[in-house]
């Protein structure tokens, strides 16, 4: 009995009122996610990703618009929504320190009224998958942050939700653990048709490799929403260059942005050199950019023409790269 949409929002709004100001965190978000999809949210800090997830998981009320999860309204049918969802947010160390890993996990199956024997069987399976099997009897207070996060991920899957929300689940995990988590999430979807995952992430590659569809969100609005391939295809008519240069001044970037035919330029400063991503409407514009480089006394170290990535799509839409927004945030 699958609904037509796993998630459906229409003109979703959310404002936060603090003493100093009123902040529009979500400004008209429309989403339609089908059962079976792995749907990604990509956006800079403060874009509204967590706010969306909090509304969809019934933790926060919308200020306007409607949201349905698995066919139920988050406002009026919150209890029904809760029977179908679970959520994991990364980058935190939650858990009852005095309980063991197994007890923590078991406890949550009981909130869902799961049969205890079935619960323990699933706990064992998932502990095995996440490489935590030998820690089942360890007190949670003795676990590192990353291990707690793995436990938290297991908690999310344990109740076999129809819609699983993952808010930056790999934040703070080591490379190996992050890969395990991604692989297993995909595997879980593939072996359980109809299950749906909504994932927010800062990692372009994660979104690109993992997600069936990606919504790019910034300032509380969705700027684009499509499969990673189509999103990249939208830049196919443009050409993307990667340049390594000696450090360049902001004036150079401004000058380049003025050039007719330059879609976007973004800078990632490294040690002694800068990496520039340049999206041009046409190859022929490149010489003008290079001449600006000379004008601003910067040297070209290397130049490469490449396929557009999701990051390029992001820069093109949001106006700056994710890493830039992180350093300025």
């Amino acid at each position: 009995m699958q609904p037509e949409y796993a998630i459906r929002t229409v003109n979703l709004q959310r404002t936060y009122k603090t003493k100093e100001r009123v902040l529009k965190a979500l400004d008209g978000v429309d989403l339609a996610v089908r059962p079976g999809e792995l749907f990604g949210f990509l956006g800079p800090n403060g874009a509204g990703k967590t706010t969306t997830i909090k509304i969809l998981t019934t933790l926060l009320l919308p200020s306007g618009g409607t949201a349905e999860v698995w066919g139920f309204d988050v406002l009026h049918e919150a209890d029904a929504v809760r029977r179908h969802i679970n959520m994991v947010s990364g980058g935190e160390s939650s858990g009852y320190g005095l309980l063991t890993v197994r007890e923590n996990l078991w406890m949550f199956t009981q909130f869902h009224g799961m049969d205890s024997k079935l619960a323990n069987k699933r706990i064992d399976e998932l502990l095995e998958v996440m490489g935590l099997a030998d820690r089942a009897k360890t007190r949670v207070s003795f676990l590192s942050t990353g291990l707690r996060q793995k436990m938290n991920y297991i908690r999310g899957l344990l109740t076999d939700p129809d819609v699983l929300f993952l808010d930056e689940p790999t934040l703070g995990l080591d490379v190996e653990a992050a890969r395990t988590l991604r692989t297993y999430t995909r595997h879980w979807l593939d072996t359980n048709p109809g299950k749906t995952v909504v994932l927010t992430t800062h990692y372009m590659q994660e979104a690109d490799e993992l997600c069936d569809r990606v919504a790019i969100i910034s300032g509380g609005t969705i700027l684009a929403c499509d499969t990673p391939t189509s999103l990249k295809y939208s830049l196919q008519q443009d050409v993307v260059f990667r340049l390594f240069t000696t450090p360049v001044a902001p004036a150079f970037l401004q000058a380049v942005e003025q050039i007719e035919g330059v879609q976007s330029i973004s800078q990632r400063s490294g040690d002694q050199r800068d990496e520039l991503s340049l999206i041009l409407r046409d190859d022929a514009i490149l010489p003008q950019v290079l001449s600006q480089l000379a004008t601003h006394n910067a040297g070209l170290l290397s130049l490469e023409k490449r396929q557009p990535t999701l990051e390029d799509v992001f820069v093109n839409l949001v106006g700056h790269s994710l890493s830039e927004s992180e350093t300025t945030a």
Partner: protein
Amino acid sequence: MQRFLQAFRVGAWLGWKTESNWTNPLFYILWSLLLPMSNGLIMTMMLRVLQRTGNSSGADLLPYVFIGTVVYSIVALLLDSMAWAVLEDRERMGMLKYIAITPSSMYGYLWGRGFAKVSINFLAVPLTLTFGALVLDIPIRLSTINWPLLLVVVVLGLLIVTFAAQILAGVTLMIARHAGFVGQAVSGALYLFTGALFPITVLPNWMQVIARAVPLTYWLEGMRRALWVDAQNPVYNTGLNQLSTTNLLLILLASAVAMAVISIPLQRRAEHRAKEKGLLDMNTAY
């Protein structure tokens, strides 16, 4: 109802697991005796000193004070327990949001936490009272205890305190701050206004009005009447000795009902408010 019981079970289980983490049962018994006993002893000593300095009215208030403080110790514990669970889960454990998104009843869960707290600490009351009877010569005798009255009063009293605790938890849920002080402030204030420590007749008139409006005042009086044959003797001038025990029980019953009627919609309101303000995953930098 099933959701309530399910959540209650989990809450009670968690409470027991985390709060009775005793490797040795002897430590547990010692620990549970420590607080009420030290309260009882301090009050006894103070009273003795006062009586020696000549301020005595002639009546020995020792049984009054001893029963009041010992019984009140469990009130303080229970009153604070649910608000504390909210704070601990929300701030220190970061778990309240994960509980909130399950299809279970937060109300039931909090009752479970409160129940665990009471059941862990309840033994302390009879133990301390026995200690009082044997060592301090408090006139509590197994043969003179009014057992049926005791049972009824205990049940009604615990219900009243539990609903009150629920109200405090609801308030805590709506406060965007580390509101650990709420429970303490209330139980501190009630200590004064319930006649736990001294008869309410020593209070100024306007304070007596407040004290007479607090259900716990009648609970402590009921406990004294059940445990201590002389509780209603006019020499103690408790201000309540005119009240018949039947009326006292009716007041307790009405209070329990009233508290329930307030607490249940308040919890719903509090959850709604917390969702409106986004407080369920609040972290106020503990």
